[in-house]
């Protein structure tokens, strides 16, 4: 048994190492980009809701529909569907770089939805109390809205990360590399 593992590592060891690094890169960069896009989107969704601070029917509905559409397309289809877009953004549609774009497009709306749910849990009364104290809206967003939903946000991000790792497995199909490619 021991001999076999040694043999396996001799044969695949360096590949495995490289693949692990690639997976971490892929997931890490995609996750970071998705949060950077998803969190503000989530905040925008909450704020533009009817009868909220920046109520705007059009912005809200467009966002809502776009997010629903993207969320309902399986990753594997999305991956091919947006190939031209990927190429336009990063210049290539293969490799680690080529797979980050679809991963972000897939994950950011998901994060936006999860953030929206988390932020909506915040007690409206507290937001009002801060408004009544004459605090600036951007301060209320950060120091009250985001702060009070911290634990739900973290839970949401955990869920999103798991989804992201799952999706990254399919990255192998466009030669994205990573652990999952090695296993194919």
């Amino acid at each position, binding site marked *: 048994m021991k001999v076999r593992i040694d043999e396996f590592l001799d044969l695949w060891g360096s590949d495995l190492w490289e693949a692990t690094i690639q997976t971490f890169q892929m997931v890490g960069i995609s996750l970071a980009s998705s949060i950077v896009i998803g969190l503000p989107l989530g905040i925008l969704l909450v704020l533009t809701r009817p009868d909220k601070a920046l109520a705007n029917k059009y912005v809200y509905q467009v966002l809502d529909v776009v997010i629903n559409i993207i969320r309902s397309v399986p990753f594997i289809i999305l991956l091919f569907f947006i190939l031209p877009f990927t190429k336009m953004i990063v210049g290539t549609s293969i490799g680690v770089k080529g797979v980050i774009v679809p991963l972000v497009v897939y994950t950011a709306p998901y994060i936006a939805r999860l953030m929206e749910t988390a932020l909506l849990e915040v*007690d409206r*009364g*507290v937001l*009002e*109390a*801060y*408004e*009544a*104290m*004459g*605090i*600036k809206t951007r*301060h209320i967003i950060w*120091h*009250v809205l985001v*702060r*009070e939903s*911290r634990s739900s946000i973290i839970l949401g991000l955990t869920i999103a990360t798991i989804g992201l790792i799952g999706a990254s497995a399919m990255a192998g199909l466009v030669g994205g590399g990573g652990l999952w490619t090695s296993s194919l």
Partner: protein
Amino acid sequence: MIELVGISKTFTAKKGSIHALKNVSISVKKGEIYGVIGYSGAGKSTLIRCVNLLEKPNTGSVKVNNVDLTKLSTGKLRESRGKIGMIFQGFNLLKTATVFENIALPLKLTGLSQNEVERRVTKYLSIVGREEKHHAYPSELSGGQKQRVAIARALAHEPEVLLSDEATSALDPDTTEAILDLLLKINKEFGITILLITHEMNVIQRICDRVAVMENGEVIEDGTTREIFTSPKHQTTKRFINSLFSHQIPDKILLNLNKTGQVATLSFFGESSGEPALALVSKKFDVYPNILSGSITRLKEESFGQLLIHLKGDANEIEKALRFLEQQHVHVEGVRVSESKNRRIS
């Protein structure tokens, strides 16, 4: 200090529109405690939220300290809001912040220095009587303690006006008393004008100088607490005052009593004016007074009592006796059977 003139507010809901406020005007003087009382849905919260424009009225002007808030830019409005403190039924503290942070954070966000923030937090926490437990979270505090923290948070901005939206409605009677005492103290020591809304007459009775009674989005009656207590005109006002006294006599008994005389409610100020007058009545007129029930309660400045009495005797003599009582500054109302309204005699 606060001048609301001709405020109307209509909400458009799916089922149609709700006229929450219809041409409401109230005027609160500097340094007084003004109460607005009304049943659920009367529009009280909407009204008080119009004062700091959390709710934008459709028509009317909102002047606080002679500044028309409806005409201000967003920035100037924020500045003015800093001078108007507000406390709520639900306390509205941050769950993720300690007592100290709850008061310090809004101060920091308005741009005060760290030193000043700390000074104010310490000062106002001790004023509301919560100098210990700075590092407790709201979930570890009782309702009364949370409201104290919320009051400290409002005071820390050193406002000229404090708005209170049912601040004691979620509290038990003892805690309510303590919070009302605190509001009185704030009013006296800092001269902060207080506008409060409530559905409990005892809140009005304990601390308010003047009152407005609201129903269906309108102010139906207003005046000094004393005026409202002695001569309530509107049915709703009477019901609120009667909620403090429970002189419920079964109709059957009332019917019998009214056969042999007259049942009446006497209202009077001061501990001593009711019963002595009644004693005189029995001497001067040919009537036999009998006290069926009675109680005395404290208003902000003086005590206020009510006696439910039965006067036995000739109708003519009774009439004279009641006249006499009115001359002695006792307010008299006759009580009849199955009469939800108390009609005034004389």
